[in-house]
C-alpha cells in the first residue's frame, strides 16, 4: 500500500471530517486585526450548542477568571481572542466524528490523549516564555493526532491491521503504521489540516511531532508538540493506540530546557491543570 493509494482513498472519502462552518468563519475572522469582540461573539452566538459549550469552558477553572463570564462577547474580551478561538476549536473537534462500530481504538481515549498533550504543550510554552502564544500551543497539541482520527473513522480496515501489528510486535502505533502504509498518521493529519486551512505553524506541529528535527518552519511548535506528546503518554492519560512511550528526542529536550527536574515540575503542574480542565474532559465524554 503506498501513500498515493491511501491519499487517493482519503481524498475519495466523502465524509471526511469537516469543521462546522461557524468555526471556519471564526478562524477566518480572528486572522483580521480589525475584528472586534462583537464580531466574533455574534458568530459564536449564531450556533446555540457551540455557545453553551463555549460558555461552559470559559467558566472552567482552567481559565481561572475570578467572576462569572455571562456572555460570549465578554468571554472574548476577558479571555482574549486567541483563547476563545481555541476553545471553539476544542469544543468542535471532540464531536466532529462518531466512533465506528468494532473499532480497535477508542476515540474517547484518543481525544483524552490529545487534550492532555494540548495541556502539556501549553505548560511547556508557559515555562519557555519565548513569546509564542501559549493558546496556540494548546491547539497544536490538541490537534497533533488528527491523522489518527481519520484512520480510525474513515479507514477502519487499515486501522485494524495497524492495531494488529501493534499488538504482535509490541511497538508504537506510528512504527506499525510505517510498516504497513510506508507512512504514518502525521502525514494524514497534515492533509486534513491543509483542507481545513489551519495556519502553517499548527500544520508543522502535526507534521513533525514524531520527527521534530525535520521541522523547517516553526521549530518551537514542532519541538513543543513532540515533547508534549511524549510527556502526555508518560502521564498515561487517554491512549494513542499503543501502550508505549515514544522516546524524547535529546536535542529537542535540550533546546526546550527539558531536563529531568523540569519535566518533573511540568508533569506535576499538568496534573493540576488537568484537574481544572475537567469541563473539557466532560465534553469529550458527552460528545463520544
Amino acid at each position, binding site marked *: 500500500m503506498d501513500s498515493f493509494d491511501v491519499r487517493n482513498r482519503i481524498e475519495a472519502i466523502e465524509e471526511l471530517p469537516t469543521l462546522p462552518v461557524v468555526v471556519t468563519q471564526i478562524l*477566518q475572522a*480572528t*486572522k*483580521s*486585526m*480589525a*475584528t*472586534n*469582540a*462583537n464580531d466574533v*461573539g455574534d458568530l459564536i452566538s449564531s450556533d446555540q450548542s457551540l455557545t453553551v459549550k463555549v460558555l461552559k469552558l470559559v467558566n472552567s477553572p482552567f481559565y*481561572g*477568571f*475570578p467572576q462569572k463570564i455571562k456572555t460570549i*462577547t*465578554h468571554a*472574548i*474580551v*476577558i*479571555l*482574549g*481572542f*486567541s483563547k476563545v478561538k481555541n476553545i471553539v476549536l476544542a469544543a468542535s473537534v471532540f464531536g466532529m466524528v462518531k466512533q465506528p462500530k468494532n473499532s480497535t481504538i477508542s476515540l474517547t481515549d484518543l481525544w483524552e490523549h490529545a487534550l492532555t498533550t494540548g495541556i502539556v504543550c501549553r505548560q511547556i510554552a508557559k515555562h519557555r*516564555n519565548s*513569546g509564542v*502564544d*501559549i493558546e496556540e500551543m494548546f491547539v497544536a497539541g490538541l490537534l497533533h493526532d488528527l491523522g489518527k482520527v481519520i484512520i480510525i473513522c474513515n479507514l477502519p480496515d487499515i486501522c485494524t491491521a495497524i492495531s494488529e501489528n501493534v499488538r504482535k510486535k509490541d511497538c508504537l502505533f506510528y512504527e506499525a503504521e510505517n510498516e504497513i502504509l510506508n507512512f504514518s498518521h502525521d502525514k494524514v493529519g497534515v492533509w486534513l489540516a491543509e483542507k481545513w486551512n489551519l495556519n502553517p505553524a499548527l500544520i508543522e506541529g502535526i507534521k513533525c511531532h514524531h520527527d521534530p528535527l525535520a521541522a523547517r518552519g516553526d521549530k518551537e511548535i514542532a519541538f513543543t508538540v513532540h515533547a508534549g506528546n511524549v510527556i502526555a503518554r508518560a502521564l498515561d492519560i487517554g491512549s494513542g493506540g499503543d501502550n508505549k512511550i515514544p522516546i524524547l528526542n535529546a536535542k529537542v529536550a535540550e533546546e526546550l530546557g527539558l531536563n529531568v527536574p523540569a519535566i518533573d515540575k511540568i508533569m506535576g503542574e499538568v496534573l493540576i491543570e488537568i484537574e481544572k480542565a475537567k469541563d473539557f474532559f466532560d465534553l469529550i465524554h458527552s460528545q463520544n
Partner: protein
Amino acid sequence: MTNDPVNQFEYQKYFDKLVVFTRSLQRIREAKSYSDFISEIETNLDEITPFLFYKFYGINEDQKSLKIISELGPDELTIDLNMVQWSLSNDGPSLIPFQTPIDENIKANILIPVVGAQPFGVICLWVDYETSGFNIYIALALKMLAQEVASSFSLMNLTNKIKEQRDFMECIIASVPSGLFATKMDGTIVSINSNAEILFNVNRKEVVGKPYMEVFPEKIASTIYTLRINAERTGGVSETEVEYEFSQGNILYLGINASIIYSESGEKLGYVIICRDLAISREVVKLRELDAMKNDFVSLVSHELRTPLSSIISYTELLLTPGMVDSPEESNEFLNIIFQEGHRLARLINDILDLSKSESGKMDYIFAPQDINSIAKQSLRSSKPLAEKKNIELQEVLAENLPEVSCDIDRIIQVYLNVLSNAIKFTPEDGLIIVYTRLVTVENKKFIQVEIKDNGCGISEKDYDKVFNKFEQVENVESHSSGTGLGMPICKNIIEQGHGGRMFIKSELKKGTSMFFELPV
C-alpha cells in the same frame, strides 16, 4: 484571503499602523530617565486606545500586595488584587466589564499584564466602551506595549544590579590603602583610586582613557613599563621599589607591583598596578628593631647593674656579720671593694643617663674655642697611671699650628679618656699607644682629626659596628674588662650628634687598633 482586495487594503493599513507603533514603542526603551519612561508609557497607551483613567500597579515581591508605579485618576478608583493576580497569569490584555459610582462613564477596565522573567505588575485602563471597542489590533498593540515595558524593567533591574556591583567594586578599590590603578593591555588607564590620584597628583576625570605613559611622572611610568614587561614575561606579578619625589624634598619609597588581569576564559584584559608607600612598612621594621634593642638593653643594663650591687651587698653583709672579719686590714679591704663597686655603679648609671641624653639629643653642650692638642696632653696625663700599671708607653705626635675648634671641653676629654682607657685595656703589657692630631680635609671641609693608635689585639672589620653598639663588647678580646659597654656609643654620639663630626675605627687583628674622631674646624 490575501487575494481579497479589501482585506489586502486592511492588512496594509494595520501593517503601517504597527510599523509606526513599533517605532513609538522604541521611545519607551530609549527613555533617558524614569519619568520619561513613565510618560512614554502613557503616551503610547493613548495612541492605542482612548482611556479615562490609568493606573500602573507594580506587584510586590510577596506577589500579594500592590504598589502604584504611576497613575492618572482618582485615588478611590482601585482594582481588586484577585484581578491583578488573574491578569498576571495571562499572557495578554483583557477587557473586563466594570461599573463604578465614581464615574458613570466608566464601562470597562483593561488589564494589561507586564511580565518579564518575573511578574512586574499590571497596567490598568478605565475606558468608556464595552466589548465593541475592543479589537484584535488593540489587544495585540497592548500586548506589545506590555512586553516592551517588561523588557525595559528587566533592563533597568539589570542595569541597577550592574551598577550596584560596579559601585561595590569601586568602593573596594577606593578602600585599598595603596595607590591602585588598572590599565588595558595597551596601557590606557581604565580605573584609578583616590590614593593613586593623591600619590601622583592627578585627577581621575582627566586621566581615565589616557595612556599611563602620558600621565605619570617619567620615573614612575618607566618603572611601570619595566614591571609590565616582566609581568608579561613571567605571567605573574612583578615587583620593585623606587624612590619618588612626591613633593619638593619629600621623597617616598614606593613598592610598586604590576600583575596581569585575566578574564575567566584566560584572556589578558590588562594590568593592575599597586603602589605602596614603603615608609610605613619600613617604619614598622625599624620600630620592631628598636623594640628588640630596648629589650636587650634593659636585660643588659639590669645584668650590669646587678653585678656591682651584689658585690656591695655581700661585702656589706660580711662586715655586718659578727666574727666574719678577722682584722681591721681585712675590713678595710672589704670597704675598699664596696667603695670601688659603688663607683662602678655610679659610673654605669651616669653612662646610661649620658647615653640616653645624647641619643635623645637632650645632652647639654657648652661650646667654646679649644686647642685640641692641649686637651690631648691633659687626657694623656690623666691616663698615665692606668697605663703605667701595664707598663704601656703613651706617646703623642701632635701637629703644630692647629686651629682652635669650638667644642665642649669636658665632653671631648670624656671621649679622649674613654678611647684611651679602652686602648689601655686591650693592649697587652709593655705595649705602645700613640695619640696623633692632624688637620684633614673631607669633601672641602676642614676637620681636626685625632687618632689614638694602639698595638693591642685588634678587632676584625666585621666587628667594627659592635664597638659602637650599646653593651656590646667584641668577643675575642684577650683580657676581658669590666667596662660598661656604653663608652664607645656615648663617644660616637658626642662627636657626631653633639659636634657634627665623625668617629670611626680602623683595626687589624693581632696588630692593633686606631680609633679616629674628627671635629669640624
